[in-house]
């Protein structure tokens, strides 16, 4: 069995700051991490491999330094990692990204076998579009299962997979045929720590690195900025609200007095609300 996991290296958003004057993202020195949602995908892939045998290949398209994220995948126990990196991919939107990743996956399949499953995260924490998974699936003409909360059954012999998919108001139980593309929901599993053996192997391993030509990508007009139909025209900071909050007087007041004053303020500003609350509230 061969499983391919798509991972993206992203800036650790908790540490991103926006320059207060120029409105530019201050990326300098911001550490990068594996997109947290992708870890759920990777763990699920490793679990299936441990149960059914086979190999897990992690792939990413990104700058040369994205090999850090891939090496981390190896320490978790992935069998192989492939980095696609080339200046032609700069400025890719999701359509151009899915184009490059689909061709990368084809090349990986040529070298190490057709994948039975492809995993993606639900979305990234930077671009945050959730569009790349469906994009890859469509380009490879694969079935897609998105927002998967649980893999209920995985039958390699019958080539079938049954999953729980998060939908509005409930869970859809879906069954489909392999190969297919799965995007995993967060919180579905917990990432393993990886063994000492994996760590040693990761330290020794080469990250397989391809440029566009090596991956067989020749139609450069479909890549990067050129291949991206979306255009970012404007980036700006949200306009602040003019006035600050009206403060309820608290000096020398009892808590009850404060609450009365607050309720008075609420009823003044939302006149119809109290009447409706009488209808909806249950507990008095």
């Amino acid at each position, binding site marked *: 069995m061969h499983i391919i996991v798509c991972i993206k290296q*992203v800036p650790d958003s908790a540490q991103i700051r926006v320059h207060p004057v120029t409105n530019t993202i201050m990326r300098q020195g911001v550490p990068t991490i594996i997109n947290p949602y992708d870890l759920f995908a990777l763990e699920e892939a490793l679990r299936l491999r441990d149960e059914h045998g086979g190999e897990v290949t992690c792939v990413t398209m990104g*700058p040369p330094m994205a090999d850090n994220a891939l090496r981390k995948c190896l320490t978790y126990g992935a069998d192989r990692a492939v980095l696609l990196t080339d200046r032609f991919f700069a*400025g890719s939107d999701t359509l151009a990204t899915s184009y490059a990743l689909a061709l990368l996956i084809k090349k990986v399949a040529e070298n190490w076998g057709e994948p039975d499953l492809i995993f993606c995260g639900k979305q990234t924490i930077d671009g945050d579009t959730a*569009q790349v998974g469906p994009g890859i699936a*469509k380009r490879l003409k694969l079935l897609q299962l998105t927002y998967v909360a649980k893999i209920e059954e995985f039958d390699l012999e019958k080539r079938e997979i049954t999953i729980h998919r998060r939908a509005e*108001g*409930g869970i859809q139980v879906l069954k489909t045929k392999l190969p297919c593309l799965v995007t995993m929901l967060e919180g579905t599993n917990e990432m393993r720590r990886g063994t000492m053996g994996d760590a040693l192997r990761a330290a020794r391993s080469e990250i397989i690195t391809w440029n566009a030509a090596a991956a067989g990508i020749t139609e450069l007009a479909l890549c990067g900025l050129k291949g991206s139909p979306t255009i970012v025209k404007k980036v700006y900071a949200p306009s602040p609200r003019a006035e600050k909050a009206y403060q309820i007087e608290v000096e020398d007041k009892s808590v*009850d007095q404060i609450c009365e004053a607050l309720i008075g303020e*609420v009823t003044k500003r*939302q006149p119809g609300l109290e009447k409706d609350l009488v209808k909806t509230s249950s507990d008095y």
Partner: protein
Amino acid sequence: MNDKAPAPAAPAAGGTRASAKKELPDHLKSYKHVWVLVELERGVVHPVSWELMGEGRKLADQLKVDLCGVVLGPPGGTEKAVADCFGYGADVCYVVEHEALSEYRNEPYTVVATELVNKFQPEILLLGATNLGRDLAGSVATTLLTGLTADCTELAVDADGSLAATRPTFGGSLLCTIYTLNYRPQMATMRPRVAAVPVYVPGRTGKIIRHEVSLPEEDIITKILAFLPDATSNKSNLSYADVVVAGGLGMQNGDNFQLVRNLASVLGAEWGGSRPLVQKGWITSDRQIGQTGKTIRPRLYISAGISGAIQHRVGVEGADLIVAINTDKNAPIFDFAHVGIIADATKVLPALTESFRRRLAAASTLSAAE
């Protein structure tokens, strides 16, 4: 964007991208009208579809074109949704009824949506940024090889008639406006609850265009084995609640969070919290409010012990009245709350719960006596 170069959202890259000119190829010039894909599931339309209808109406009026609803569903199962499309402002409704469209599945929905677009050629196609909308939009945009802007909070038409779709980036600290200049349709998904549901006009009608499709079930590989509805008891309805009470780290511990729920209970309100509470396990993730949680739009939002970080702010700004309780007079939440109390939330909440309880009890006796 791949990390290779500054992301397009990063101003540094703005130079090349922002200067792109509109050169629409001839075969795309005939694309016209604004479409909203109506999310009909198990007989119910997701409210985001009507929110989109309201926004779509403004775009269509500005472009002087029709606003069209697209309703896919089982045979005989679309009538109410179609009538509601007109009630909420559509001029035209494209209707496709088929057994295979009874419940959402990516394959048949993608086939039908793509077929409709190719045949009737809309210039703008809008979907909700829901699990259904995002699943479908990605497939349709890739099939059509057009641009798709994700999770927008604002839609507008600029001077030359192009769709300007704005979305928060980097956790809401910046906004970016994205265009699809040279491809059609221009596609976008919009976040639930960032726009208001428009006024419903009963009896309003429009033109219905039915489209026949061939979707043999044996050609559809993915099968639906079951639908397991969420237990209604623990399901939060935060996005659509009239009143929401939320707590943050200022509640100090998980036990104190009960004070938030008590007030919510008296008000018949929904309750939620900031993201750290999910990480601490005080609340479940479906109760998280903000950029990476729920967007809310209640008439009254009471926040207790929440600092008001930008990622929280973007999820609550649509509330009509925001009340904030925080011990720190410099907390950023007071920059966007309407009414503030600088006090200890663990003391104010129980008293407020009591005051509301008394007041509502009195009001209810009064209204019963009338």
